[in-house]
């Protein structure tokens, strides 16, 4: 019997090691796997490359992970928010590397990784500072920029409902990067608000099929705040 539901946080994070590239779902404060992120702290895991849309807010989740010195590099589209002070201080002090990626390019680079596409051309960022040093080519009369697939060693994902096969559905804007990150990592670890019986999720409405998921931990924390 396949059972991807794990009983403990230790079981969920087993094998996550220093130096990994970790894809972290979430947009703003919605759909962020904060319990999984927080649990990375205190395990001696360091030198992480984090791929996330934002750079964390306040002193929880991603911000806390960075504050504890676990993150070497951030790949991100929008590392600026009124409460992203932890990241800003580390960045100014030269204690964290930053790669800025247009949001759609970031999503597509992970989709490509998940779909076995090595690289692709896109008009986004052509002629801008973010395309400096990248290969370009005219396709269909338009200049485009070569972008490579972005693979994760680990993806940390937050779902709304999950079953023991790892089938997932999400809650409204909580979906965001979570499904595409689940596709793009060697090991996808999910925290879910609800665990349901196999067969309870409508097959027509499953957003992330279990093939993209390795472990599911039940974390019924309630609503996002902030």
């Amino acid at each position: 019997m396949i059972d991807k539901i794990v009983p403990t946080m230790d079981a969920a994070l087993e094998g996550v090691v220093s130096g990994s590239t970790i894809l972290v779902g979430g947009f703003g404060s919605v759909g962020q796997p904060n319990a999984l992120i927080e649990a990375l702290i205190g395990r001696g895991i360091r030198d992480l490359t984090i791929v996330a849309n934002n750079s964390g807010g306040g002193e929880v989740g991603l911000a806390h992970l960075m504050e504890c010195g676990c993150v070497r590099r951030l790949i991100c589209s929008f590392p600026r928010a009124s409460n992203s002070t932890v990241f800003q201080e580390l960045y100014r002090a030269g204690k964290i590397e930053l790669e800025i990626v247009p949001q759609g390019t970031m999503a597509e680079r992970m989709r490509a990784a998940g779909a076995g596409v090595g690289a692709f051309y896109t008009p986004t960022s052509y002629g801008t500072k973010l395309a400096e040093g990248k290969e370009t080519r005219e396709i269909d009369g338009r200049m485009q920029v070569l972008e490579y697939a972005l693979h994760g060693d680990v993806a940390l994902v937050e779902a709304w409902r999950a079953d023991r096969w790892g089938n997932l559905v999400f809650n409204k804007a909580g979906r965001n990067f979570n499904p595409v990150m689940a596709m793009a990592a060697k090991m996808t670890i999910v925290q879910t608000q609800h665990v349901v019986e196999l067969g309870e999720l409508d097959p027509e409405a499953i957003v992330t099929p279990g093939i993209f998921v390795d472990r599911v931990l039940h974390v019924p924390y309630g609503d996002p705040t902030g």
Partner: protein
Amino acid sequence: MDAVMDAKPWSRDAMAARLARDVPEGWYVNLGIGIPTMVADHVPVEREVIFHSENGVLGMGPAPAPGEVDPWLINAGKKHVTLRTGGSYCHHADSFAMIRGGHLDLCVLGAFEVAANGDIANWATSENDTAPAVGGAMDLAAGAKRLWVIMEHTTKDGRPKLVERCGYPLTALAVVTRVYTNYAVLDVTERGFVVVDVVPGLSHEALQARTEARLHFA
């Protein structure tokens, strides 16, 4: 300068209302943060315009009534919103496929500068910006079928924002087709900026005096 002083500029609300007049039923539209967001308030609900938010919301409605906030439903500006009947959710790669695949009829963005050739600079104000942040601006600017900019005609200290060439780091090249400011509405054409509408009482000379790029009058 007297002519400029006499002419009353459009308020931000009036600018948004002026732009909203030009959005027909059936268009799929993404509105950037700031003045662009206000455009939605001026599209009457019976005119079915479908608003897209890049965090995976298609058919976004207005802000919720007090007490009816759903903490799981935010827009790209991280503000709580609602979903209209018929609306849907998608993940980020699909949401940006809508943007980058040319499926949006219109994107409205703010800007620091727009150049006479349609270049836009709206994401960073210097080459050495502390922790620059681009978000979806480059995808939207390059991907939507039409890119309109809505912004003040000049900076707070009176520097022109309609320029011959952008001085700030570019967001995308030659993509802006129309600009709505507090003094005028302008098309970006092969000739450069062509003025299609001006606030009442403002002379051509007075508008040109507030603009670095050369203006053409239709």
